[in-house]
């Protein structure tokens, strides 16, 4: 009968869970909370070896309910989280991380920082791969918060120096924040992933202390390491860095060329096109035409006046100079079967004219040249 008891218990547990789930999906948080108090009983007799045990279910559901329940407070939430942390060793870091996120979203930066420090010092046996990742994230977020306090100190210092007096303690604190932030941020961005905000902060730190080489290396690594995903932002950050430091046109163009290859519809393509148009080299000007044509292939650019004026300008130039008409021909050949319907339909002409006259002008010019041929 103990088997039967277990079966019955399991069944009623499942039913209870489905009631909770149902209430939550209908946003009846109070009802869900009532059911959850019954479900907590399942912790006492946890026979399951399932993928997701009741303690995790309680953590997840409890968190969600506390976030939406009209009578919950941050204090209650914190004490619930502390209880949840003790429930499962395997999940400790994850719960800590989620708790931190919650605190951060509520603007409780200091509490979040404390929470992270506490979690960082936690040790329990050998860490699994997932725990290792979570620990790295905890450190990275602590680094991020360190960066924010660094940047706060920096602002104070800058204001003070404008006023004419120096504060050594602030400066010292700022440097210690820098060290703590730099160590942790440096760690995470070595691992393949999307670390936009960490990279930005780390580069900012390095730039402030004048370590441009390191910064460039970090950005290059982030953009060009093949183990990392092809993140357009990595190339954007590198381009912006190069631009900030007055790098040569050539290196700027090569950075944008790669961005063009991975994301031809990126908004920087207009900058790229203008840069290329200004170039003396024929090859670059040709690339510019390719870039703007490619950008206008995308649905998101259909009504982009800037892009159309770029194209109109360049096409006009080519036609007036009567040189390199073949460039247009080559580009047009691969598009002539669908651009008219895509860009130059009667319906669009009418609508563009009603909504945006300047767009109409630019498009009309391009259409006249392209369709006229």
């Amino acid at each position: 009968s103990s088997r039967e008891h277990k079966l019955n218990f399991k069944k009623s547990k499942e039913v209870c869970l489905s009631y909770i789930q149902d209430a939550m999906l209908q946003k009846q948080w109070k009802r869900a909370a009532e059911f959850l108090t019954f479900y907590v009983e399942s912790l006492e007799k946890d026979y399951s070896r399932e993928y997701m045990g009741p303690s995790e279910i309680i953590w997840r559901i409890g968190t969600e309910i506390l976030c939406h329940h009209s009578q919950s407070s941050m204090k209650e939430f914190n004490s619930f989280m502390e209880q949840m942390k003790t429930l499962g060793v395997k999940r400790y870091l994850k719960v800590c991380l989620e708790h931190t996120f919650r605190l951060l979203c509520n603007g409780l930066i200091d509490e979040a920082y404390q929470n992270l420090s506490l979690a960082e010092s936690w040790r329990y046996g050998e860490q699994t791969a997932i725990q290792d990742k979570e620990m790295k994230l905890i450190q990275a977020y602590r680094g991020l918060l360190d960066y924010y306090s660094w940047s706060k100190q920096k602002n104070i210092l800058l204001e003070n120096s404008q006023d004419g007096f120096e504060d050594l303690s602030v400066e010292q604190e700022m440097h210690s924040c820098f060290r703590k932030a730099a160590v942790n941020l440096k760690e995470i961005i070595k691992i393949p992933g999307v670390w936009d905000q960490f990279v930005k902060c780390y580069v900012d730190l390095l730039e402030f202390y004048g370590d441009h080489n390191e910064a460039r290396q970090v950005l290059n690594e982030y953009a060009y390491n093949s183990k990392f995903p092809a993140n357009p932002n990595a190339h954007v950050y590198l381009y912006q860095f190069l631009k900030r430091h007055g790098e040569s046109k050539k290196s700027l163009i090569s950075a944008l060329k790669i961005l063009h290859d991975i994301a031809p519809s990126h908004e920087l393509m207009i900058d790229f096109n203008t840069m290329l148009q200004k170039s003396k080299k024929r090859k670059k000007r040709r690339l510019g035409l390719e870039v703007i044509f490619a950008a206008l292939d995308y649905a998101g650019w259909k009504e982009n006046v800037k892009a159309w004026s770029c194209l109109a300008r360049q096409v006009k130039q080519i036609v007036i100079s009567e040189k390199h008409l073949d460039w247009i021909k080559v580009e047009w050949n691969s598009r002539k079967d669908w651009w008219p319907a895509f860009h130059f339909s009667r319906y669009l002409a009418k609508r563009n004219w009603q909504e945006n006259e300047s767009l109409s002008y630019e498009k009309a010019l391009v259409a006249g040249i392209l369709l006229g041929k």
Partner: protein
Amino acid sequence: MEFPAALFPSYFSTGPPREEGGPAPASGWGELGQVLEAGLGRRQAETFVPRRGGTGESWEPADAAAVPFLPPNAGSWIPSLLPQDILCRGIAHWKSRAGKSEAALDFSRQLGHFFVDHPEDAFGSLGQLLHKNFYLGNSKLRRPARESTIRMTALMEDIDRLEARRGCPRQRLVYRLRWFSHLCRDWLFEVPLGLLADCVHEELLLQWTSLLFDDIPTGGALAWLPPEDTGARMGRLVYPRGQAMNHLCILPSEVSWGGKGSRVALPLTGTPDFQDVVVEELPHARGSPAQFELNGRIRQVAAARVDGEDFVGVRSDYHCGVWKVPARMGAAPIPLQVIRTSVPASCLTVSPHLPGELSVCTQSGAVYLWSVETGLQRLRHDTQTMFFRDHSAWRWSDFTAHPRVLSCADRTGLQCLDSRAPERCHFDLFKVGEEGGCQQGERVVLPMYLGRAHPSQHLITTQFSVYVMDERLPLVPMLKWAHMMKAPPIFAHLTPGGPGRSHKVLLGTSRTQEMLLLQYRGEKQGGSQSACQLAGPPQKLHSITSCLQHLPTQLPHRHRLLQQRLSVPAAGLAAALQEDGPQESLLVFQLSEAGDVFCQRLTHRAAQAPAPTLGDEPCCPALPSPATALRYRRWLKALSKHWRPPTQQAWPPTLSQNRLFTRKELETPVSPSALHQQARQRLRQAMREGGRIQHWDTPAPQPLALPQPLEPVGRLDPLSARLTAAWSGDWGQWWEERTSFSVAQKQRALRERRRRQKRARGPRSLSASFTSSLTYQSELSELSDTAPVPCSPGCPTAVLPREGSPVGSSPPASPAPEEPLLSSQSLLCRGIPKERQKTLRDYLAVEEEDPPEPPEPPGSQLSQLCIPSSQSQLSSASQPRRKRPRMGF
């Protein structure tokens, strides 16, 4: 379009998924995922936004349940296959092993059904050849027949017994069955048994997998064509209708009841000479058709608006068609083109960029770009899946931000192909693997291009999660959320939100009718695009079944029918956003496989609006409004009209014996065999005496083997004669003699009585009386020669009368009044010995006082029923017979 200035942090690794697991009940709750600083770059404001769990808009259901939108679909709807139909003992045996479920399919029952339902296909020729050699009767086979005939009855009984003991642990093998099956397994079946079994098994597996997950309706067969001007209240709903769901209906939404257009049949001629698909021109529809009859069940309806005109693609198994619906309300839809495929199509999507462009996938692994103007272009043909091997033949394709680039999906992931150079230019958009943080066993269920919300975003659903992908950063999900739905979401619908608003995504499942409303945000904040966030908790919408409790109470069987009707799997969903001044509402339509369309309204509660007094929780009305209740009643009334009138089943069931037995079987044989007579006689006697029959079978030959010399029987009284016989040990024989004697006596008495009756009726010819008396004499004389009447070999040896019953007074069992005519006539030619004449006279005197012969007991008829026709043929049928009255059962 701008790319978000910073994305949420995430790890990126490659390879097969490492995370084990399965559908976890609460996996979608409680996590924020990651946080990102909202105003990155701005100075002091350190506010963070979560990836999940942000605030969303509040949409509240306006009604207690889904409301019928159209009258019920006509036609008798056939209930679909249930797991009980194909599983062993009707119970699902789930062996959960590593997340895989296995069921015990009842293979032998299905094979048995096939043999019973299609005997001609199963045993046609050999059955005809051999049917004379198989005998299914109960009686023994006679000599000449036995040479070439097998009696199957015992075998059948064995099979029945086997069936009855099914699942019994102590079940033993029946050797006779084994022997028979070994003997004829190779030649008895029309189709070789192994081959047939393979086919049945394959079909069973197919049915089972489609029962577990049916991917044919992926995409859904319901579409909403919004009005051109968002403020207008008119739109069109495209849905399938009819008994076979083969009528495409395009209904202006303000028409809610009735309103049918003329039907236009689309004839399809010619055979494909194209490898897979062929283009055929369509005749123009005349008039203003709102309904088109197609020659196939509509599986999917896809729609997209290009340049103010809606293009509607319709997929059935072997045909895909495209219609153009002009923006002007009331304008007739124009059928444009139909293609026929040789392999079932699995996907049809309409380009949102170019008019008259669609993409088609077939189950053979081919992906086509279909342009109404230029025809079909095959982009890919690969029977293998893309990233790892998966058995599913399902393929999907959709459009992307670039009109010439198509996404191509199978269960393992998504690739984007450039249609201008499909071989060379492609990139992977989504992979089931570590890249997306997938679980083991996770598979792509439905990809959808979210172009109307953001030109480069795609939605991908799996059985566990939903993903939002961005073409510009392939392989890395912008958003991932575990949806916790009970079945894989194969329907999805996007309602894009304007600036500052969230995009609404509806997910729908088929079998469980679930619908979930998700909101996500990817809006511009402070000049730069912010990363994708899930906004607000997901919300469950009413399913069609939910209205059952609000429908008027029904009789139990009606209720059951209604329940069946309402809980059929969903076949599609659509949504329409209506703006009525400041009030916004979302109309959600759900289509069932029975063809019913239900809808529900969600009203938007703006953030500024004062919260209702009952706290912040949205309260769904508990009861339907009067108008809704009226709608329910009308719908139910219309549905009950479709149900077959009950008059056909109203009479109580009657059973006629005509149906149970053929006329031939009911006929009594002309002349029953001696064995029959004997048996009947004994039965009757045993009944009369309340005795019992001990040995029914043929007696052991021993008592008959040594005929004892007949002693002259003196004038012993019956008791002493009996005692004497008992003393000498052959009491049985004495009894034999006695009974047969009395039988003969009784027969004679009967005859005598008849003679007397005849005489009484009128003057008779002398010769006749003379003859009869003569025969009478001869009969008696013959009887005296051989003491016991030599009966058939199966003559009973001992029929024991009840103890103490007077033997003489109990008249022995008499043969049936009609039957003895034959035997008595033969007896007439026998003489009666002189010494027995007194006994006869005595007996006759007794007989005269006897009541007339009782009518034949009904049991005799039963016994005759069991006589197979072959036996009745054996007995001479030349004698004319009187028809017997039929006794009621």
